[in-house]
């Protein structure tokens, strides 16, 4: 069977399960006895195995199977978790990740059998002494359930709708035979909906489906247990159709007979309800241990046909399977194109606004409609943005494992504390932020934290702490990587800068500490005394900085020698559409992102003071440097130099700067467009936007001016 169309889903879900496994095994290391964690691991391993099997990845299936066996023993209390076992499990997970990434690249699992790991897993199993038979699947039993149904009719008994009755009558008139068929899916079948679809296809080659229970929609949505019933019409005999159905893999059995209309539905009620409890019992003993009172369940379906559905729902819950979320997987490219369309819409809306303004006052209704349109487009934009937002959890959840490995490798006890994993960011940003964060955490773990003896001598706890905190701050998301380690030795960085010829000694001594620390972000500037496997090769912080700047973000360091270092990453919530303040400088229009602006002030020219030959203003006790945008932008201001100045106060972290502009136009929603490779050399212009009248305005990046 061709399963390639499910490959994407398989890859996505495998990664999810592997991540869950990693997290769970890590939890297990802390709390070896937790039955919930063990159960969770077992389920994830079981699902993974089934999926790999379905997709035909035998090696991956074998490895997961052996892992599952180990957990099965642990769950049954025949094995105790120990440190060695955790290591083997992590190796095993790494190997599985390897399979998944090979599959992603080549659509094939490769030929690494990972025998050493399988051997280790088997050794663990053997170590429990009287080796019981590893748990085997009991899938064939499902067909027993099938036999139960044999005696009666094969239709579930749901009353036919008018349309269905009519379709049946039409078929009968056309001299076709009407059959009822019940299809049984194997108990460990994973892509049930896909199987059902194949069953439908097989049937439709020679016959027509008149009715289905559950409805075809529910079947396609996988809202059924291990069986579903169909009424079909065909000219041919039933046998070949049944054979065709059984030909679909993971279909345990298909039974059927001639459907005899209304009477049949009543007659069928009894046998099928008998079959149902059979399936349920079977599941109960096979799957997760669930405290179920079997008799109650048997009674439930017997009562009446209508009760059957709720009973099934209850069964779903008791099985502890997560309820199917109401979510859809969407290709990110489709979202990108949706976002582009929204951008275009906003540009079109802006141009409508500007034409309406030119049209004059006597068009009240038009203005009302345009205001309505504005609110709709703004909401639309927000909704599309929200759709694109994913929690950063997907990237940060791998870090505890990484820190654990580093801790073992360096023999340095340390712990990672994370908060704000649920903070959401644009999907494209989340995809890119993983590497920089990893660099920073490694940096903290390797250079930041001291060895335990040093820590004890300094009166710190032996085990080092690294914190990863994420939170939303206005239009930005802030991610902080903090450690309680040694901090950065600013004087060593100074020496190094002079040594490397980046600064003269005088420059270095005159420079402020913060400027010196920023040197760390220069390419190939590493102060680590030893080059280790982890970091210290001079790649790292410069890569971090360029990556984050490519995402229109910024990164900042604060450090105190002996106390620790904090890296702060600040990222915009969205990359494409922002609220901006439109200003005029020298007759040209410019946009300034509203998120970077604190206030707008009117300043008299006489209040401008000069400190160290730089212009500053004193604003409510703060001395703020003044940036004359006309000079920065190489243009002549059109403002009368003696009149009061409009100063936009911009903020970057805790630093402020006053940008002098000629005139304010107002606030506007703008769509950011790239300037392209040829002319992006100007670092304080972050892009361009198209205004309502078709004119282009450049966007000023205040961060580059502060």
């Amino acid at each position, binding site marked *: 069977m061709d399963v390639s169309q499910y490959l994407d889903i398989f890859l996505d879900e495998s990664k999810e399960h592997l991540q869950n496994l990693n997290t769970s095994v890590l939890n297990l290391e802390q709390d070896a006895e937790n039955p919930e964690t063990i159960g969770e691991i077992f389920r994830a391993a079981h699902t993974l195995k089934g999926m790999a099997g379905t997709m035909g990845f035998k090696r991956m299936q074998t490895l997961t199977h052996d892992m599952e066996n180990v957990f099965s023993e642990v769950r049954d209390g025949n094995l105790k978790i120990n440190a060695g076992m955790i290591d083997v499990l992590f190796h095993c997970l790494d190997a599985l990740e390897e399979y998944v990434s090979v599959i992603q690249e080549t659509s094939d699992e490769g030929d690494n059998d990972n025998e050493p790991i399988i051997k280790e897993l088997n050794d663990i199993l053997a170590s429990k002494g009287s080796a019981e038979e590893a748990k085997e699947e009991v899938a064939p039993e499902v067909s027993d359930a099938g036999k139960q149904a044999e005696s009666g009719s094969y239709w579930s008994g749901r009353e036919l709708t008018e349309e269905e009755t009519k379709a049946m009558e039409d078929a009968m008139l056309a001299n076709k035979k009407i059959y009822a068929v019940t299809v049984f899916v194997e108990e460990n079948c994973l892509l049930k909906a896909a199987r059902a679809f194949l069953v439908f296809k097989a049937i439709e080659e020679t016959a027509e489906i008149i009715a289905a229970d559950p409805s075809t929609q529910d079947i396609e949505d996988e809202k059924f247990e291990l069986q579903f019933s169909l009424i079909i019409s065909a000219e041919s005999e039933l046998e070949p159709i049944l054979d065709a159905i059984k030909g679909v893999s993971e279909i345990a059995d298909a039974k059927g007979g001639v459907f005899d209309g209304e009477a049949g539905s009543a007659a069928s009620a009894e046998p099928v309800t008998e079959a149902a409890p059979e399936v349920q019992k079977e599941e109960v003993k096979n799957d997760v241990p669930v405290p179920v009172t079997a008799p109650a369940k048997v009674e439930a379906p017997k009562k009446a046909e209508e009760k059957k559905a709720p009973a099934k729902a209850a069964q779903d819950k008791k099985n502890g399977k997560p309820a199917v979320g109401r979510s859809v997987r969407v290709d990110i490219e489709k979202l990108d194109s949706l976002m582009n369309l929204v951008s275009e819409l906003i540009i079109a809306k802006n141009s409508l606004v500007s034409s309406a303004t030119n049209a004059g006052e006597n068009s009240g209704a038009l203005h009302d409609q345009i205001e309505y349109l504005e609110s709709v487009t703004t909401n639309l934009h927000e909704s599309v943005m929200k759709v694109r937002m994913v929690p950063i959890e997907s990237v940060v959840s791998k870090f505890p494992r990484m820190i654990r490995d580093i801790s073992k490798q360096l023999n340095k006890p340390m712990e990672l504390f994370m908060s704000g994993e649920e903070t959401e960011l644009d999907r494209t940003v989340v995809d890119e932020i993983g590497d920089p964060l990893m660099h920073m955490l490694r940096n903290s773990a390797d250079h930041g934290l001291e060895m335990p003896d040093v820590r004890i001598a300094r009166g710190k706890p032996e085990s080092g702490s690294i914190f990863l905190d994420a939170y939303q701050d206005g239009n930005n998301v802030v991610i902080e990587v903090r450690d309680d380690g040694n901090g950065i030795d600013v004087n060593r960085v100074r020496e190094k800068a002079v040594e490397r010829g980046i600064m003269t000694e005088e420059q270095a001594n005159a420079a402020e500490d913060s400027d010196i620390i920023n040197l760390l972000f220069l390419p190939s500037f590493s102060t680590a005394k030893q080059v280790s496997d982890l970091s210290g090769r001079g790649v790292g912080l410069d890569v971090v900085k360029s990556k984050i700047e490519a995402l229109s973000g910024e990164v900042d360091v604060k450090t105190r020698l002996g106390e620790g270092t904090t890296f702060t990453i600040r990222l915009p919530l969205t990359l494409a559409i922002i609220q901006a303040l439109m200003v005029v400088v020298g007759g040209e229009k410019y946009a300034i992102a509203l998120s970077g602006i604190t206030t707008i002030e009117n300043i008299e020219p006489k209040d401008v003071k000069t400190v160290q030959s730089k212009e500053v203003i004193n604003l409510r006790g703060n001395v703020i440097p003044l940036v004359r945008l006309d000079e920065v932008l190489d243009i002549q201001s059109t403002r009368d130099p003696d009149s009061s100045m409009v100063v936009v106060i911009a903020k970057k972290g805790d630093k402020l700067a006053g940008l002098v502009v000629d005139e304010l136009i107002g606030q506007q929603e703008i769509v950011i467009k790239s300037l392209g*490779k040829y002319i992006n*050399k100007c670092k304080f212009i972050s892009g361009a936007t198209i205004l309502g009248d078709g004119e282009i305005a450049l966007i000023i990046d205040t961060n580059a001016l502060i």
Partner: protein
Amino acid sequence: MANELSTNVNTNELAQYIVINIGEEQYGIDIKYIDNIVRLPQITRVPKVPVHFLGVINLRGEVIPVMSLRKKMDLGADTPTKDTRIIIIKMAQYEAIGMMVDSVKEVVNLSSDQIESTGSDKRDEAAYVRGIGKHDGGLISLLDLELILQEIQ
């Protein structure tokens, strides 16, 4: 039969060029790289960029940079007139760019035997010319777009 005949003639490859004017000179641009030719739109200046970049224009919602062929070839500043055009160039591996020219004259077909490649001793403005085409008694300098785009990247 007729087809065979024409393919035989075609060993002498025909290519179409747009002939543009800069000052008194005629230049040719291979038509396959031309995406569009537009009248002079409003150009937004971009600060701190090399002098041959005039700024950016809005081409149906796209922001496209515009360069001056005159300035790139040291032929002086542009003086926009009603004939001034922006030629939008799209070449594989390069982003779209607009080139300002004094005017666009015509489209010509040149076969390879009508083109004479330029020697190695290139003068300033000839540095970006990869061949001279002869057409109707006039000479057309064929621009080496790839070289220009490479340099300004």
